Protein backbone atom coordinates (compact mmCIF):
# COMPACT_ATOMS: atom_id res chain seq x y z
CA UNK A 1 0.00 0.00 0.00
CA UNK A 2 1.33 3.41 -0.85
CA UNK A 3 2.27 5.87 1.81
CA UNK A 4 -0.70 7.82 3.06
CA UNK A 5 1.29 10.77 4.21
CA UNK A 6 4.64 12.28 3.58
CA UNK A 7 5.30 12.27 7.29
CA UNK A 8 6.23 8.68 7.75
CA UNK A 9 9.68 7.36 8.51
CA UNK A 10 10.86 3.84 9.07
CA UNK A 11 12.01 2.81 12.52
CA UNK A 12 15.58 1.79 13.05
CA UNK A 13 15.68 -1.95 12.57
CA UNK A 14 19.20 -2.52 11.42
CA UNK A 15 20.56 -6.04 11.79
CA UNK A 16 22.76 -6.86 14.71
CA UNK A 17 26.39 -5.94 14.43
CA UNK A 18 29.08 -8.39 15.32
CA UNK A 19 29.49 -6.96 18.80
CA UNK A 20 25.79 -7.07 19.39
CA UNK A 21 25.72 -10.69 18.36
CA UNK A 22 28.14 -11.47 21.15
CA UNK A 23 25.46 -10.76 23.78
CA UNK A 24 28.02 -9.56 26.25
CA UNK A 25 28.52 -5.95 25.25
CA UNK A 26 24.91 -4.95 25.55
CA UNK A 27 24.39 -7.02 28.65
CA UNK A 28 27.28 -5.26 30.30
CA UNK A 29 25.93 -1.94 29.12
CA UNK A 30 22.59 -2.77 30.67
CA UNK A 31 24.25 -3.88 33.85
CA UNK A 32 26.11 -0.62 34.07
CA UNK A 33 22.81 1.22 33.73
CA UNK A 34 21.23 -0.74 36.53
CA UNK A 35 24.36 -0.34 38.61
CA UNK A 36 24.29 3.40 38.20
CA UNK A 37 20.79 3.36 39.63
CA UNK A 38 22.14 2.08 42.91
CA UNK A 39 23.44 5.53 43.59
CA UNK A 40 20.39 7.39 42.39
CA UNK A 41 18.10 9.11 44.78
CA UNK A 42 15.10 6.95 45.44
CA UNK A 43 11.88 8.67 44.51
CA UNK A 44 9.99 6.57 47.01
CA UNK A 45 7.35 8.17 49.16
CA UNK A 46 7.52 6.15 52.36
CA UNK A 47 3.84 6.48 52.78
CA UNK A 48 2.70 6.16 56.36
CA UNK A 49 5.63 8.17 57.66
CA UNK A 50 6.03 10.48 54.75
CA UNK A 51 3.15 11.96 52.83
CA UNK A 52 3.09 13.53 49.47
CA UNK A 53 1.24 16.80 49.13
CA UNK A 54 -1.74 16.37 46.89
CA UNK A 55 -2.65 19.04 44.45
CA UNK A 56 -5.12 21.64 45.70
CA UNK A 57 -7.73 20.30 43.30
CA UNK A 58 -7.28 16.69 44.39
CA UNK A 59 -10.53 14.79 44.42
CA UNK A 60 -10.76 13.01 47.74
CA UNK A 61 -13.35 12.74 50.49
CA UNK A 62 -16.22 15.15 50.30
CA UNK A 63 -16.88 17.96 52.69
CA UNK A 64 -20.08 19.91 53.27
CA UNK A 65 -19.51 23.60 53.54
CA UNK A 66 -20.75 26.07 56.10
CA UNK A 67 -20.81 29.80 55.71
CA UNK A 68 -18.97 32.28 57.88
CA UNK A 69 -21.62 32.05 60.56
CA UNK A 70 -21.33 28.31 60.77
CA UNK A 71 -24.57 27.61 58.94
CA UNK A 72 -24.87 24.72 56.55
CA UNK A 73 -24.92 25.82 52.96
CA UNK A 74 -26.70 22.81 51.55
CA UNK A 75 -30.33 23.33 50.60
CA UNK A 76 -30.95 19.76 49.52
CA UNK A 77 -31.66 20.73 45.95
CA UNK A 78 -30.48 17.33 44.81
CA UNK A 79 -28.37 18.49 41.91
CA UNK A 80 -25.35 16.63 43.22
CA UNK A 81 -27.33 13.42 43.44
CA UNK A 82 -28.54 13.92 39.90
CA UNK A 83 -25.08 14.61 38.63
CA UNK A 84 -23.56 11.64 40.37
CA UNK A 85 -22.90 8.94 37.81
CA UNK A 86 -22.49 6.35 40.53
CA UNK A 87 -25.70 7.20 42.35
CA UNK A 88 -23.82 7.38 45.57
CA UNK A 89 -25.53 10.38 47.13
CA UNK A 90 -28.72 10.15 49.15
CA UNK A 91 -30.46 13.03 50.79
CA UNK A 92 -33.67 13.97 52.47
CA UNK A 93 -34.78 17.53 52.44
CA UNK A 94 -36.45 19.24 55.37
CA UNK A 95 -37.93 22.67 56.01
CA UNK A 96 -36.05 24.91 58.33
CA UNK A 97 -37.98 25.47 61.54
CA UNK A 98 -38.15 28.60 63.60
CA UNK A 99 -35.06 29.04 65.69
CA UNK A 100 -32.86 27.07 63.40
CA UNK A 101 -31.60 30.01 61.42
CA UNK A 102 -28.23 29.73 63.04
CA UNK A 103 -27.94 26.17 61.73
CA UNK A 104 -29.07 26.38 58.15
CA UNK A 105 -28.46 29.10 55.68
CA UNK A 106 -31.64 28.76 53.66
CA UNK A 107 -35.19 27.68 54.28
CA UNK A 108 -34.56 24.16 53.14
CA UNK A 109 -31.83 21.95 54.37
CA UNK A 110 -30.67 18.39 54.10
CA UNK A 111 -32.00 16.49 57.06
CA UNK A 112 -30.08 13.49 55.93
CA UNK A 113 -27.13 13.61 53.60
CA UNK A 114 -25.28 10.41 52.95
CA UNK A 115 -22.58 9.51 50.54
CA UNK A 116 -21.65 5.92 49.99
CA UNK A 117 -17.92 6.20 49.57
CA UNK A 118 -17.74 2.65 48.32
CA UNK A 119 -19.84 3.58 45.32
CA UNK A 120 -18.35 6.99 44.80
CA UNK A 121 -15.87 7.28 41.97
CA UNK A 122 -14.53 10.68 43.03
CA UNK A 123 -15.22 12.20 39.64
CA UNK A 124 -15.95 15.62 41.08
CA UNK A 125 -19.21 16.12 39.24
CA UNK A 126 -21.10 16.79 42.48
CA UNK A 127 -18.76 19.61 43.34
CA UNK A 128 -19.30 21.03 39.91
CA UNK A 129 -23.05 20.60 40.08
CA UNK A 130 -23.57 22.29 43.40
CA UNK A 131 -25.20 25.69 42.93
CA UNK A 132 -25.05 26.55 46.60
CA UNK A 133 -21.37 26.41 47.41
CA UNK A 134 -22.13 23.44 49.62
CA UNK A 135 -20.33 20.29 48.58
CA UNK A 136 -16.64 20.09 47.86
CA UNK A 137 -14.10 17.39 47.52
CA UNK A 138 -11.12 17.56 49.82
CA UNK A 139 -7.51 16.51 49.74
CA UNK A 140 -8.08 13.66 52.18
CA UNK A 141 -8.30 10.38 50.40
CA UNK A 142 -10.98 7.97 51.52
CA UNK A 143 -9.55 5.50 54.03
CA UNK A 144 -10.08 1.78 53.86
CA UNK A 145 -12.40 0.03 56.24
CA UNK A 146 -13.42 -3.41 57.34
CA UNK A 147 -17.14 -3.23 56.78
CA UNK A 148 -19.46 -1.85 54.21
CA UNK A 149 -21.24 0.28 56.73
CA UNK A 150 -18.00 2.05 57.47
CA UNK A 151 -18.34 3.78 54.16
CA UNK A 152 -21.69 5.45 54.60
CA UNK A 153 -20.64 8.98 55.37
CA UNK A 154 -23.44 10.99 56.84
CA UNK A 155 -23.69 14.67 57.41
CA UNK A 156 -21.65 14.66 60.60
CA UNK A 157 -18.74 13.07 58.87
CA UNK A 158 -18.88 15.45 55.99
CA UNK A 159 -19.52 18.85 57.51
CA UNK A 160 -16.54 21.08 57.98
CA UNK A 161 -15.87 22.40 61.50
CA UNK A 162 -18.00 25.27 62.59
CA UNK A 163 -16.25 28.59 62.39
CA UNK A 164 -17.78 29.90 65.54
CA UNK A 165 -17.50 26.94 67.85
CA UNK A 166 -14.49 25.15 66.56
CA UNK A 167 -12.15 27.58 64.90
CA UNK A 168 -8.99 25.59 65.64
CA UNK A 169 -10.34 22.54 63.91
CA UNK A 170 -11.32 24.64 60.96
CA UNK A 171 -7.84 26.04 60.73
CA UNK A 172 -6.53 22.53 60.79
CA UNK A 173 -8.91 21.52 58.07
CA UNK A 174 -7.75 24.45 56.05
CA UNK A 175 -4.24 23.21 56.44
CA UNK A 176 -3.14 26.36 58.22
CA UNK A 177 -0.96 25.09 60.99
CA UNK A 178 -1.25 27.19 64.07
Amino acid at each position, binding site marked *: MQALTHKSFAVNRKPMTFWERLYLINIIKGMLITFSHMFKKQPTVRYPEQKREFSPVFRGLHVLN*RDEQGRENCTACGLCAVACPA*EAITMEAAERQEGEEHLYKEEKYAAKYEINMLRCIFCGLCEEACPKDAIY*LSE*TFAPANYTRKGFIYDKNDLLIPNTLTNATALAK*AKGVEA
Partner: protein
Amino acid sequence: MRPVRFNLNPKEAEISEAISMGKAPDGVPGDGFFATQLSSVVGLARKNSLWPLPFATSCCGIEFMATMASHYDLSRFGSERVGFSPRQCDLLMVMGTIAKKMAPVLRQVYLQMAEPRWVIAVGACASSGGIFDTYSVLQGIDQVIPVDVYVPGCPPRPEAIIDGFMKIQDLVGQESIRRRNSEKYRDLLNSYGIQ
Protein backbone atom coordinates in the same frame (compact mmCIF):
# COMPACT_ATOMS: atom_id res chain seq x y z
CA MET B 1 -12.60 27.67 45.73
CA ARG B 2 -12.64 24.98 48.27
CA PRO B 3 -13.39 26.14 51.77
CA VAL B 4 -11.08 23.64 53.44
CA ARG B 5 -8.33 21.36 52.33
CA PHE B 6 -9.04 18.35 54.44
CA ASN B 7 -11.91 16.36 55.72
CA LEU B 8 -11.05 15.87 59.35
CA ASN B 9 -13.42 13.01 60.00
CA PRO B 10 -12.44 10.16 57.79
CA LYS B 11 -14.08 7.16 59.36
CA GLU B 12 -11.95 5.18 61.72
CA ALA B 13 -11.89 1.52 60.94
CA GLU B 14 -13.09 -0.57 63.84
CA ILE B 15 -11.00 -3.70 63.80
CA SER B 16 -13.48 -5.51 65.98
CA GLU B 17 -16.07 -5.23 63.26
CA ALA B 18 -14.02 -7.01 60.66
CA ILE B 19 -15.64 -10.22 59.57
CA SER B 20 -12.64 -12.18 60.58
CA MET B 21 -12.48 -10.80 64.10
CA GLY B 22 -15.35 -10.64 66.51
CA LYS B 23 -15.11 -11.29 70.19
CA ALA B 24 -15.21 -14.74 71.59
CA PRO B 25 -18.60 -15.51 73.12
CA ASP B 26 -18.81 -15.52 76.88
CA GLY B 27 -17.90 -18.69 78.63
CA VAL B 28 -15.31 -19.70 76.11
CA PRO B 29 -11.98 -19.78 77.87
CA GLY B 30 -9.34 -17.67 76.25
CA ASP B 31 -6.10 -19.07 74.97
CA GLY B 32 -3.41 -19.74 77.49
CA PHE B 33 -0.48 -17.44 77.91
CA PHE B 34 1.74 -19.47 75.64
CA ALA B 35 -0.81 -19.67 72.88
CA THR B 36 -1.34 -15.94 73.05
CA GLN B 37 2.36 -15.30 72.81
CA LEU B 38 2.63 -17.69 69.89
CA SER B 39 -0.30 -16.02 68.22
CA SER B 40 1.26 -12.64 68.46
CA VAL B 41 4.62 -13.82 67.16
CA VAL B 42 3.03 -15.65 64.28
CA GLY B 43 0.81 -12.68 63.62
CA LEU B 44 3.85 -10.46 63.49
CA ALA B 45 5.52 -12.79 61.03
CA ARG B 46 2.47 -13.12 58.87
CA LYS B 47 1.74 -9.46 58.68
CA ASN B 48 5.22 -8.69 57.48
CA SER B 49 5.18 -11.33 54.86
CA LEU B 50 1.86 -11.01 53.11
CA TRP B 51 2.35 -12.18 49.57
CA PRO B 52 -0.32 -10.66 47.43
CA LEU B 53 -2.11 -12.26 44.54
CA PRO B 54 -3.15 -9.35 42.37
CA PHE B 55 -6.44 -10.27 40.82
CA ALA B 56 -6.20 -7.19 38.69
CA THR B 57 -8.84 -6.82 36.07
CA SER B 58 -8.91 -3.15 35.24
CA CYS B 59 -8.02 0.37 36.29
CA CYS B 60 -7.16 -0.45 39.89
CA GLY B 61 -4.62 -2.91 38.59
CA ILE B 62 -2.79 -0.02 37.00
CA GLU B 63 -2.75 1.82 40.29
CA PHE B 64 -1.53 -1.35 41.91
CA MET B 65 1.37 -1.29 39.48
CA ALA B 66 2.10 2.21 40.70
CA THR B 67 1.93 0.93 44.27
CA MET B 68 4.41 -1.79 43.46
CA ALA B 69 6.70 0.56 41.59
CA SER B 70 9.45 2.70 42.98
CA HIS B 71 7.29 5.63 43.95
CA TYR B 72 5.31 3.82 46.60
CA ASP B 73 7.00 0.45 46.82
CA LEU B 74 4.75 -2.02 48.52
CA SER B 75 7.81 -4.20 49.06
CA ARG B 76 8.64 -2.15 52.11
CA PHE B 77 5.94 -4.14 53.82
CA GLY B 78 7.59 -7.37 52.83
CA SER B 79 5.20 -8.19 50.08
CA GLU B 80 6.93 -7.71 46.82
CA ARG B 81 6.69 -11.33 45.92
CA VAL B 82 3.64 -10.96 43.79
CA GLY B 83 2.47 -14.33 42.66
CA PHE B 84 -0.21 -15.49 40.38
CA SER B 85 -0.34 -18.91 41.90
CA PRO B 86 -3.13 -18.95 44.46
CA ARG B 87 -1.42 -21.67 46.49
CA GLN B 88 1.48 -19.46 47.39
CA CYS B 89 -0.26 -16.25 48.24
CA ASP B 90 -1.78 -15.02 51.43
CA LEU B 91 -3.67 -12.00 50.30
CA LEU B 92 -6.09 -11.90 47.43
CA MET B 93 -6.22 -8.36 46.14
CA VAL B 94 -9.23 -8.00 43.93
CA MET B 95 -8.74 -4.94 41.84
CA GLY B 96 -11.17 -3.88 39.23
CA THR B 97 -14.57 -4.78 38.00
CA ILE B 98 -15.66 -8.33 38.53
CA ALA B 99 -18.22 -9.22 35.92
CA LYS B 100 -20.66 -12.01 36.46
CA LYS B 101 -18.70 -14.03 33.97
CA MET B 102 -15.65 -13.62 36.17
CA ALA B 103 -17.27 -14.36 39.50
CA PRO B 104 -16.89 -18.15 39.37
CA VAL B 105 -13.23 -17.73 38.49
CA LEU B 106 -12.68 -15.43 41.41
CA ARG B 107 -14.34 -17.88 43.71
CA GLN B 108 -12.24 -20.68 42.33
CA VAL B 109 -9.07 -18.71 42.95
CA TYR B 110 -10.18 -18.03 46.50
CA LEU B 111 -10.86 -21.70 47.08
CA GLN B 112 -7.44 -22.64 45.80
CA MET B 113 -5.65 -20.42 48.25
CA ALA B 114 -4.08 -21.99 51.27
CA GLU B 115 -5.23 -20.96 54.72
CA PRO B 116 -4.78 -18.47 56.22
CA ARG B 117 -5.98 -16.25 53.44
CA TRP B 118 -7.25 -12.72 53.37
CA VAL B 119 -9.15 -10.76 50.80
CA ILE B 120 -8.99 -7.10 50.06
CA ALA B 121 -11.40 -5.47 47.65
CA VAL B 122 -9.66 -2.56 46.04
CA GLY B 123 -11.70 0.10 44.37
CA ALA B 124 -15.34 0.87 43.97
CA CYS B 125 -16.01 -1.78 41.34
CA ALA B 126 -14.71 -4.69 43.35
CA SER B 127 -16.26 -3.43 46.56
CA SER B 128 -19.69 -2.49 45.39
CA GLY B 129 -19.90 -2.35 41.64
CA GLY B 130 -19.15 1.35 41.56
CA ILE B 131 -20.75 3.18 38.69
CA PHE B 132 -21.39 -0.07 36.90
CA ASP B 133 -24.78 -0.92 38.24
CA THR B 134 -25.45 -2.98 35.15
CA TYR B 135 -26.71 -6.36 34.18
CA SER B 136 -23.26 -7.80 33.70
CA VAL B 137 -21.37 -6.63 36.75
CA LEU B 138 -21.23 -8.25 40.12
CA GLN B 139 -22.30 -5.72 42.71
CA GLY B 140 -19.44 -6.24 45.09
CA ILE B 141 -17.30 -9.33 45.43
CA ASP B 142 -18.61 -9.95 48.92
CA GLN B 143 -21.45 -11.70 47.19
CA VAL B 144 -19.17 -14.57 46.35
CA ILE B 145 -16.27 -14.50 48.78
CA PRO B 146 -15.76 -12.99 52.24
CA VAL B 147 -13.93 -9.69 52.14
CA ASP B 148 -11.75 -8.46 54.95
CA VAL B 149 -10.97 -4.94 53.87
CA TYR B 150 -12.58 -2.60 51.40
CA VAL B 151 -10.65 0.20 49.81
CA PRO B 152 -12.78 2.94 48.30
CA GLY B 153 -11.80 5.05 45.35
CA CYS B 154 -12.05 4.66 41.66
CA PRO B 155 -9.26 3.81 41.47
CA PRO B 156 -7.84 4.38 44.93
CA ARG B 157 -4.56 6.18 44.79
CA PRO B 158 -1.50 4.23 45.89
CA GLU B 159 -1.61 5.80 49.34
CA ALA B 160 -5.11 4.47 49.74
CA ILE B 161 -4.08 1.02 48.60
CA ILE B 162 -1.24 1.07 51.11
CA ASP B 163 -3.70 2.27 53.72
CA GLY B 164 -5.92 -0.71 52.96
CA PHE B 165 -2.92 -2.95 53.04
CA MET B 166 -1.97 -1.68 56.46
CA LYS B 167 -5.49 -2.32 57.67
CA ILE B 168 -5.05 -5.90 56.54
CA GLN B 169 -1.74 -6.00 58.36
CA ASP B 170 -3.45 -4.87 61.57
CA LEU B 171 -6.01 -7.58 61.09
CA VAL B 172 -3.42 -10.24 60.39
CA GLY B 173 -1.32 -9.20 63.32
CA GLN B 174 -4.21 -9.58 65.71
CA GLU B 175 -5.57 -12.82 64.43
CA SER B 176 -5.39 -15.79 66.73
CA ILE B 177 -3.70 -18.80 65.23
CA ARG B 178 -6.68 -20.86 66.19
CA ARG B 179 -9.20 -18.79 64.39
CA ARG B 180 -9.09 -20.72 61.16
CA ASN B 181 -10.16 -23.85 62.94
CA SER B 182 -12.94 -22.19 64.86
CA GLU B 183 -16.62 -22.82 64.52
CA LYS B 184 -17.20 -19.18 63.74
CA TYR B 185 -14.90 -19.20 60.78
CA ARG B 186 -16.50 -22.33 59.45
CA ASP B 187 -19.89 -20.68 59.73
CA LEU B 188 -18.59 -17.71 57.79
CA LEU B 189 -17.36 -19.92 55.01
CA ASN B 190 -20.56 -21.93 55.06
CA SER B 191 -22.52 -18.76 54.58
CA TYR B 192 -20.67 -18.42 51.30
CA GLY B 193 -21.27 -22.04 50.47
CA ILE B 194 -17.64 -22.95 50.95
CA GLN B 195 -17.00 -26.16 52.82
